[in-house]
């Protein structure tokens, strides 16, 4: 299991193993002590770093973080899609304790139609959310606007580079 710490400017820190990330917000700690009483193998105020993500199984870490009465400790699954399913029983999931850290997964609703506009003597302008297949690669473009060459003269195909104007393309 990888153990990785990340420091931020605010004194808040995050610690991760392969499954989850635990967020530590020292300014919110009221020293209720539930964390180290429950799981000293992970939460040891006498050690540096004081959170050792290798100290116990993920389930035990989650259970202990959920005991923290404040937002000093919070957690999330690293696999973002799993976070949407976390129930309120997990009181200290970031959705409930640190919503500012929770990125709502992209809406699964169907995106609207992709707009394809043919510009006078110019490119094809495509706007919206779509998958672009080009040279065996696949790119998901979300709410973007791109212009594709229609005159055959661009120096950066498939995109338009304005060359149509220089070449006097009509169409």
């Amino acid at each position, binding site marked *: 299991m990888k153990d990785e710490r990340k420091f931020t400017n605010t004194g808040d820190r995050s610690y991760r193993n392969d499954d989850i990330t635990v967020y530590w917000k020292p300014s919110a700690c009221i020293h209720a002590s539930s964390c180290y009483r429950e799981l000293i193998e992970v939460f040891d105020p006498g050690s540096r770093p004081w959170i050792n993500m290798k100290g116990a199984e993920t389930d035990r870490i989650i259970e202990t973080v959920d005991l923290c009465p404040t937002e000093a400790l919070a957690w999330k699954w690293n696999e973002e899609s799993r976070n949407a399913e976390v129930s309120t029983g997990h009181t200290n999931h970031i959705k409930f304790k640190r919503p500012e850290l929770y990125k709502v997964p992209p809406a699964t609703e169907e995106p609207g139609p*992709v707009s394809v506009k043919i510009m006078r003597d110019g490119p094809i302008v495509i706007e919206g959310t779509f*998958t672009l297949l080009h040279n065996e690669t696949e790119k998901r473009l979300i709410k973007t606007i791109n212009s594709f060459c*229609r005159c055959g003269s661009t120096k950066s195909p498939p995109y338009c580079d304005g060359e149509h104007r220089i070449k006097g393309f009509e169409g």
Partner: protein
Amino acid sequence: MERNKQKETIVEVISNGPLKISGNIKLTDSVRGITSEDNEIYLCRCGKSGNKPYCDGSHKRHQGM
């Protein structure tokens, strides 16, 4: 690769050929007065089509696409 054509719009740059667009599309060409919601279109990229904005295969007769 399996794709759901109805839900996902795919823009495919066909090598030395047109731009294939499939899925939920709204095409507008105000110069020619075309609007279309066809689920699959092939748009000319070479500038030589006689049926713009669509591809008519003219690129095959021209080098340098």
